């Protein structure tokens, strides 16, 4: 690089100062603040009393918090299967030769992921509504009015019911991502497999799937991160109810902080969300790396490590001799 292109130091500083300050102020300062306030007993008023690790002790034994954590995990698992699994099937269908009007399916399929979660929540609330809901209307139409329920009041069903809108909303999103990956596979590979007599399912399993592995990993990561922060849909549809049976972590943090105005404990929950979400995302990455390599790869990697170790030992020994 030419010296003359290098701007003067103060120019760089001038350009970076505002963005960096803004970013630190809205992302890192709050993290520090959450950590700070999590050590206080504070109900939002002027009185703040230092309470050490009392909030954390409460958090560890807080059944509601842990059940909402498991609800987040439930959402992650259901959505990985529902969103990415169904999206993959749709992609295979769209990509088959007999499909017509692919563009329309793509446009329509992607549509739900562009509207706000609040609207999605309202729409599905209308679908689940007991008196004027589409679901109960449908049950009556097929002659099973005995199955009608006040759907969102069923504690055992509610998590499944709130995850359906989430799945529905984002199938299209993962569909277009996977579609771009699948369409970059060269047709020659697929054609030669077809000539060799591979059936559609075999082609999907042994050719398409391995070739879009990396994109699939991206999708799973997005899905895990997205569902660890589930909030909007649930706020609109159930607010975590009935009772706590559809509570998720962000919703619980909101309730504690703003409805019970317990900001000290709310900060502590925020720290908990931060740690747990990072742990789950990191853990899922490790797990995926493990699943995506087979035994041969792992043994190969082990052997390489072993060789490298021996090499270094030899180098050291030679140095010591010299």
């Amino acid at each position, binding site marked *: *690089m*030419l010296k*003359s*292109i290098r701007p*003067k*130091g103060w120019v*760089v500083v001038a350009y*970076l100062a505002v*963005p960096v300050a*803004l*970013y*630190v*102020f*809205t*992302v890192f300062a*709050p*993290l520090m603040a959450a950590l700070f*306030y999590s050590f206080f007993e504070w109900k939002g008023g002027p009185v703040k009393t230092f309470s050490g690790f009392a909030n954390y002790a409460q958090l560890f034994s807080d059944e509601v918090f842990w059940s909402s954590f498991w609800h987040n995990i439930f959402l992650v698992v259901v959505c990985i299967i529902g969103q990415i699994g169904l999206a993959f099937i*749709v992609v295979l269908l769209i990509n088959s030769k*007999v*499909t*017509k009007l692919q563009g*329309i*399916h793509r*446009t*329509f*399929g992607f*549509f*739900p992921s*562009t*509207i*706000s979660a*609040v*609207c999605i929540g309202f*729409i599905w*609330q209308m*679908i689940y509504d007991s008196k*004027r809901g*589409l679901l109960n*209307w449908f049950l009556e139409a097929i002659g099973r009015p005995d199955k009608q329920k006040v759907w969102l009041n069923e504690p055992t069903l509610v998590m499944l019911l709130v995850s359906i809108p989430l799945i*529905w909303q984002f*199938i*299209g999103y993962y569909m*277009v*991502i996977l579609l771009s990956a699948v369409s970059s596979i060269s047709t020659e590979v697929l054609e030669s497999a077809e000539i060799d007599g591979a059936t559609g399912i075999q082609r999907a399993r042994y050719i398409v799937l391995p070739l879009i592995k990396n994109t699939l990993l991206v999708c799973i990561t997005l899905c895990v991160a997205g569902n660890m*922060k589930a909030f*909007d849909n649930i*706020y*609109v549809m159930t607010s975590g109810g009935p009772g706590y049976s559809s509570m998720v*972590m962000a919703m619980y*943090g*909101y309730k504690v902080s*703003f409805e019970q105005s317990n900001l000290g404990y709310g*900060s502590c*929950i*925020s*720290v908990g*969300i*931060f740690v747990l979400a*990072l742990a789950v995302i990191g853990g899922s990455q490790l797990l995926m790396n493990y699943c995506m390599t087979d035994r041969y790869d792992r043994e190969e990697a082990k052997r390489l490590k072993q060789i490298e170790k021996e090499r270094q030992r030899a180098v050291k020994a030679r140095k010591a001799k010299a």
Partner: protein
Amino acid sequence: MAKEMIMTKVEDNSTSTKVKRGVLGVIINFALWFFSLTCIFPLIWMLYSSLKEKRVFNADIVGLPKEPTLANYTKILSNKDYRLMESVANSARTTILSVILIVLIAFIVGYILSRIDFPLNKPLYVMFLMGMLIPIHSLMVPIYIIFSKLNLSNHWYTLLMPYVSFALPMSIFLVEGFVKGIPIELEEAAAIDGSTFSKTLFGIILPVCKPILVTVAIINVFSCWNEFSFALILIKERALYTVPLGLRQFTGQFTSDYPKIMAAMLMTMAPIVIFYFAFSKQIIKGMVAGAVKG
């Protein structure tokens, strides 16, 4: 004779595979149409149901309206208490300003981090990248505390700060990757011709980066327009409500008046829906690029 038999057999086979193909094609197309229609059905259902009166809707929730009326729309628009158009204006202002700021800042920071070597380059890059990992909902409570302490809540500019900051990591990452692919000779030639750093940045690099900046803008138009949780905690004043907040009032008060809720939702969704269907190809492309690279 034998030859003939083989011929007919082959022909038989090919017609049967043709039939199989045809049936398969019908099934596949049918399945896809089913999928597409479930995605679009709620929109259509809301469109025609919002033309019904409450009474008509309650009697028959799926039928087409026999005597379509715009009463729901006029009721919402004429009633000053809903302030729905005000919230649309607020959302539009917040979204436009946020997106402009995001594009501008991501461009400048992304370019500098990618091209200019200075001591803090690496740490700053890592700091911005870390933002992609931070679960933003863990920031809700502390941001509320900080903003209300510093009296930053409930202003027209309040939401710009979190929206811009949360969008920066991914946007900077996209720009940075794009700038790496631009030949450096471009800037060298400009420098030889006597262009200053800022002139080169905005006069030469900016036009070259247009594709990635459009992608960044598209991704963030949707996320800013639809954002709910931070608006919920930072905006308490009615006059500053964004669309998702403004819609909330309709569930509480009129839970039974579905056509009215639908009309309200359609009116607030309209800008984004029109934008989507007008540019769906570029939007989908941009979203994919953002997701895969980010």
